[in-house]
């Protein structure tokens, strides 16, 4: 099958699963994508200049325009699917495509988020079944709940949550807050330079106060920090991971609701025929920049030299950011039909 035929097959399957096809512009306003993803997306997306509309981007993904369309005039619950090219700059010479088809499926609303998670994952599993792929799941909601449950200041929790998608920086902050990394005592050097620029004296004073408060804050206790480090590196089959999380729950009670949701999701997955005894779970899966997932996450991986064949997850917070106050639970994922076609050819299935 050609990539296009494979795309058509998947697109038809998503429609058969009840999704309404949606179309989005290829040229997207850059501003909203930059505000969401930050400056890093400039390295990945093609930015162009329109004489009237300003900076535009060649669609780097469908999620943002699909969410916008739904927030503007969608029903609840709603299922959408889409098929089209996305564009990603590649900074290294090689075989990675800078323009490729994506077929996606998104579920908005509905009575049970966990049932919607399971619906999306089992549909993807079914469509990709004949291929030799390794599925991985995760749940960023558990990590976020653990951070919110730390016995430390709101400022520190906010700092950790802000960097949850930047694992390296998150780790550095956690090391600092738990005393694993030495905290350099830096007396502030006074300056008699005139203040220039937009950032005001009040803002500088506020940060000086925040620094003093942070310096006076005791470290995150060793047992609590150990739990968080343990959680970051948790990799186990899903049921074993659940047992492990239930084991640490008495020590970190704040994660209980998130673990309950995890359990409900496993039950929903089981009822759809997914073997949760063997399903791989990695607590840190999906924590990469240019992502926005804040709950269930998944990926389907082929050989190591290929990008993920399919990936997705829950992004409730994104709908709040784009919804101007309104928000709606949302979960979905995308498949790259060219990679499916390539693997099908290689394995003759």
């Amino acid at each position, binding site marked *: 099958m050609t990539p296009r035929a494979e795309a058509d097959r998947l697109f038809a399957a998503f429609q058969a699963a009840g999704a309404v096809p949606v179309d989005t512009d290829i040229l997207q306003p850059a501003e909203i994508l930059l505000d969401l993803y930050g400056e890093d997306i400039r390295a990945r997306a093609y930015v162009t200049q329109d004489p009237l509309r300003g900076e535009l981007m060649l669609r780097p993904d469908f999620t943002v325009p699909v969410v916008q369309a739904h927030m503007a005039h969608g029903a609840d619950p709603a299922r959408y699917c889409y098929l089209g090219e996305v564009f990603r700059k590649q900074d*290294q010479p090689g075989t990675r495509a800078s323009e490729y088809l994506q077929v996606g499926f998104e579920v908005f609303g509905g009575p049970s988020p966990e049932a919607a998670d399971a619906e999306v994952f089992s549909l993807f599993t079914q469509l990709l079944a004949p291929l030799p792929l390794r599925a991985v799941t995760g749940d960023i909601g558990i990590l976020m709940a653990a951070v919110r449950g730390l016995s430390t200041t709101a400022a520190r929790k906010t700092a950790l949550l802000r960097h949850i998608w*930047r694992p390296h920086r998150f780790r550095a902050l956690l090391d600092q807050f738990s005393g694993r990394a030495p905290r350099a005592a830096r007396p*502030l050097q006074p300056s008699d330079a005139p*203040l220039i620029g937009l950032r005001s004296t009040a803002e*500088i004073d506020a940060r000086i106060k925040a620094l003093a408060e942070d310096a006076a804050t005791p470290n995150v206790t060793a047992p609590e920090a150990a739990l968080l480090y343990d959680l970051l590196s948790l990799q186990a089959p899903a049921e074993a991971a659940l047992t492990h999380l239930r084991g640490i729950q008495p020590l970190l009670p704040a994660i209980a609701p998130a673990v309950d949701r995890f359990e409900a999701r496993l039950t929903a997955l089981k009822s759809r025929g997914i073997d949760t005894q063997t399903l791989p779970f990695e607590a840190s899966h999906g924590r990469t920049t240019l992502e926005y997932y804040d709950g269930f996450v998944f990926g389907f991986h082929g050989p190591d030299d290929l990008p993920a064949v399919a990936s997705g997850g829950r992004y409730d917070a994104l709908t709040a950011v784009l919804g101007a106050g309104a928000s709606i639970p949302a979960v979905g994922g995308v498949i790259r039909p060219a990679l499916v076609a390539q693997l099908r050819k290689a394995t003759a299935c």
Partner: protein
Amino acid sequence: MLKIGVPSKGRLMEQTFDWFNARGVTMRQSGAMREYAGTVEGVPGVGLVLLSAGEIPRELAAGRIHLGVTGSDLVRDKLADWQSQVAELASLGFGHADLIIAVPAAWVDVTTVDDLDAAAAAFRLMHGFRLRIATKYHRLVRDYLKRHGVADYQLIDSQGATEGTVKNLTAEAIADITSTGETLRANHLKVLDGVIHASQATLYRSLTAPMTDQIASDLQTLLKKLALPHAP
């Protein structure tokens, strides 16, 4: 003809000429002082191309010149995955300049990039847009800030007089080349800890320029004369 691209004016051109002259390769601007053409003596088959230093990386990557002298900052900023397009043959020991981030000296609470990240988060909440950093070194600065996990900033393009952008309220911070720091001080700015890139004039070889046996042989002769690694 083996083509070598050299900066077309100023100190950088003079120092490049001096470096080659000291090794028995004489470079000369031909004709009038302002004519952008030149000659190379002392080795056979080498042609001089005088170019803006900023265009030399592109010409090397396109394979229109075989060798080129320019700042290592320009190669790293203008070429994606630069090592796959050019090879570094020699650091020439002049044209030193550091690419740094500078903020208002009155920001006593900001001395590191981690501080900048925290200030950017608060700034965005207060002002409703991402903290602006003016620069012309987009790739180097973005890669550096990404490596250090800085968020809530935006890069503003500034091709000159970058030190003035903060006072003019078009940026909150800058990322620019400095050698002595005097212009920064005069504009009430201070340097954050950590250098993004310590640049100097460097001789590069294009990995894409078309080679004939003759050009390859002339290249070996030139490299030998310059006492640089060459095939026996």
